[in-house]
């Protein structure tokens, strides 16, 4: 019987599941966690969180999302909504532990591996992000992973907008090089960027 219910829940759209969850249906919310848990955990790790911390924050973010599920009206994706909650929770944790200011001051903490700039070395996003400084990584992940605007990221990070923009730009430049496919598209991209 519960298997039948589980199957019918699994066939529902995220918005339908969130509507059900808003009535207190925890199995519907469990299905949403099943669908988007990895995306949220992945984002937090990409923002620079260690595995255990990323999982803690992701759990807290899902619990917070369940409490506030009535606020989700399906205007964006559920994954995007939870990712923004998770990103803000992670930043709050960094601020609480006074790690954010240290992180903002930390320019170019990790030097890019020269070999990684070689277009013949195709690497995945997670590897490519390791070549960014902590601040660049955080800003790029927030803007392209959590879907925050530069202004929202600046507010959340309590940094000037210009600083966030320059972190994003430097991060994108490094990623463009590191994620370059072997056909030289990245070089074209760099030329196109001026």
């Amino acid at each position: 019987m519960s298997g039948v219910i589980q199957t019918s829940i699994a066939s529902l759209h995220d918005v339908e599941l969130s509507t059900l969850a808003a009535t207190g249906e925890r199995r519907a919310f469990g299905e949403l966690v099943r669908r988007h848990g990895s995306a949220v955990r992945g984002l937090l790790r990409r923002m620079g969180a260690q595995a255990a911390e990323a999982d803690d924050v992701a759990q807290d973010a899902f619990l917070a999302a369940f409490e506030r599920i009535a606020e989700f009206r399906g205007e964006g994706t559920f994954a995007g909504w939870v990712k923004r909650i998770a990103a803000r929770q992670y930043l709050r944790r960094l601020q609480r532990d006074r790690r954010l200011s240290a992180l903002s001051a930390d320019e170019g903490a990790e030097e890019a591996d020269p070999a990684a700039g070689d277009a013949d070395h195709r690497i995945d996003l997670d590897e490519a992000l390791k070549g960014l400084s902590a601040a660049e990584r955080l800003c790029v992940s927030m803007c392209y992973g959590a879907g925050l605007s530069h202004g929202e990221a600046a507010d959340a990070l309590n940094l000037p907008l210009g600083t966030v923009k320059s972190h994003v730009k430097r991060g994108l430049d490094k990623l463009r090089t590191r994620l370059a496919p072997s056909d030289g598209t990245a070089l074209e991209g760099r030329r196109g960027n001026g």
Partner: protein
Amino acid sequence: MAEVDFERRLERLFAEPPNFPDSQAFVERVERRLNRGWTARRWLIGAAGLAGGVIGASQLLMSNLFQRFETAQHSAKVLGQGLSHVSSTTDMVSALSGGYGMWIAVGLAVVTLGFAVSRVIEEI
């Protein structure tokens, strides 16, 4: 244009969730915490109801309710007899000023208490 293409590509890469071997365990941990929260809430509501009931009952007993009720009944009877000589339309006044009135007040107090408890539970 290439810049925009790269940004789109980056968004797509970010949107691809990594595969975690322990993703099922993660879901179970979240569900467990959800259930724990609900269980705690149920216990809290039950405990609040029990405490409210005990306090309400003790207050009723300590306020010599039954003695007051008898006195009120007697007063109502005397008042009712007096008023019946004045006019038959004063039945309602008589009822409210006596035992019925007190029961209505108790009922209203219970409703108010129930409302207050439900507000507290909502806040929790």
